[in-house]
């Protein structure tokens, strides 16, 4: 699994959890507003992403990249963010493989728990 998939998975899971809907029903190509996430919600969720990624992100990230797919692509391809190095809590510039254990969880729930440590 690559970084884009990992970020997509985290976002799907996070949004499913926050909105109380099943992760399977969320399509990464749909605008997030379709799931009832309003403009201010999508600003505050960036704060959670910052914690998870250990990187400072533009708060309007999900305004400018309004689908999960677009946001993940932007983060990896343009911002150079990699979710694997979150343990360092430092902004990361080099893309590398996510931790092995992160890929073992079945479904995104297990992945999120392992990565976020919560």
């Amino acid at each position, binding site marked *: 699994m690559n970084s884009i998939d990992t970020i997509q998975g985290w976002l799907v899971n996070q949004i499913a959890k926050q909105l109380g809907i099943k992760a399977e029903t969320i399509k990464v190509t749909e605008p997030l507003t379709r799931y009832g996430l309003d*403009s201010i*919600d999508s600003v505050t969720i960036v704060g959670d992403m910052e914690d998870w990624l250990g990187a400072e992100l533009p708060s309007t990230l999900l305004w400018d990249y309004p689908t999960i797919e677009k946001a993940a692509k932007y983060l990896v391809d343009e911002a150079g963010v990699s979710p694997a190095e979150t343990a360092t809590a430092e902004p990361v510039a080099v893309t590398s493989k996510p931790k092995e254990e992160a890929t073992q969880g079945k479904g995104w729930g297990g992945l999120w728990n392992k990565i976020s440590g919560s």
Partner: protein
Amino acid sequence: MQPLKQFWVAEALEKDLGDPGNPESMMSFKQVIDLDEKEEFPQEIIDWLYNWKLQHYYIPTECGGEFTRFDEFISFVRVLSRRDQTAGIAFTTMFWSYLVWMAGTDEQKQILSSFMKDANGTMCLAYSEKAHGSDLLGGDMQATKVDGGYILNGEKWPINRATRSGVAFVLARTDPDGGPRSLSLFMVEKSKINPDNFSNLPKILTHGIRGSDMSGICFDNCFIPESMRLGAEGMGLELALKGFQITRALCAAFSQGAADTALRTTLKFAIERKLYGKTVFDMPQPRRTLTDAFLDILICDCSTFGVGRGFSTMPEQISVWSAVVKYFVTTTLETVVNNVSVVLGSRFYMREAHDWGIFQKVLRDNSIISMFDGSSVVNLHALLLQLRQLTKSRARNAGKNLEALEARLATTFDLTQNLPAFNGKKLELVNRGGDDVLQGLDLALASLEKLKTDSNLNPDTLYQIITLTDIVREELNNLDVKITESTFQFGHEQDPELFDMAKQYCILHAAAACVYTWIYNRNHLGEFFANGEWLALSLRRLMSNLRPATSLPGRIDDSCVVQEMIRLYNEDRMFSIVPFQLAKSQLQETTTDATPKLQLQT
């Protein structure tokens, strides 16, 4: 002269406006009541203010004006508002110009600056719509792209100064697909568009601020050139939200002006009115009511000065600070006005019997402040969405970079310190880096402990301050636990419990602001301020919202607070931690003979 420069404009304006109790002076209570009775726009007052060149203080120096800092601004808006909120609000709609100072091109800044200075121009804000209220993204106003500009279609309502403004800041949809980037903001210069394509809706009859030019604007296939767009296409919502961060914080100044008059005119009544062989003021219950109102004003003062200066020192945190102040200060001071009405008895409801009936006008006018520019619910919502992040960042920042934190707090709260220039580009939609005000509580407690060696301080007072500040910290920890355990929700159907948590956050924030204000200004705001009884009483008052009174330290003697309130009343000074000089009252001289006796009795 007042040593603190940021109060010079307010004092000069006061002096020139004269005693509001003198019917002949500009913005006298009689004049503003007469206008209100007729529901007439206060044009003469507005003209006078333009002639005084007050509009220059709405324009930053780099854009050709005199504005340099928000704490100065807050002080002179208090002056306007203590006399008449109708005129104060009408004149201060000019502060929407900050949208242009933040996001405009040099040419747009130049146009607006000369419109305000040379043409006595004003502007209005056309954001909300009848069908959508606070839901800005739900708006129906369209801006359809055409060659060289846009075609505007739709209706905005309600708008203060809709008909008299030469410039309307209009939020309209440029992307029919919707979403947070679908709105753009336009600086519509009415003189440059075809008058056949826009019109005004009828004046709205309101509960208070009755002379306001309040209506709506309707655009019908109205062409506007591209040069009227502020910022890039799709920036509208972001600019609107950042603009609100500024104006919401400044709304506190309207409330503080109103609360000053409500207290002052009630105090005048209480000192002069005799019942049961005593003055009303001699009776413990009315005196306590007035003293508590004075304390509430001082509490709000600390928050308002804090956010005013915070714009310069920590703009990236203002999304939280301004929501706190817009909620806390406006609703607290609304309660102050209501509370002191009891002392006036039936007079509060009468339109002629006391000081031309200014109290009932204040009561009516002031009730809009917590509603406009984002209601209390909107502000608490903005805050509750951030609570979880604030809690996390507080844990993450604990014990780190303490020197930098202390330096930021000192610059923010020490009123004698110079402020760095405000940079609007540093505003953030959500708080970045935590909330210094609550982060600094441990530092504050450490500073308070050191004061135990200060022989000038009453040990009992200091004990109360330390104990109560520690309670603030405990309650913050309790709140953090509650926030962490709460289920976070999106959307607009949040649990009422989350709103309660946001309210508690505001109270703790206000308490911390009081503590820093005292710590950092003890040496230069006079003896009353330095002694700190007001702080001990204020903290107790704030914490009684969170804990039963029996679990708090007992209320200390408040006679010094009573005396200070009477002193400020007698000397015509603002009820404030910085009691700057107001216009000298001619009528009050007859009452000063009676008041030394009052001071001795208290």
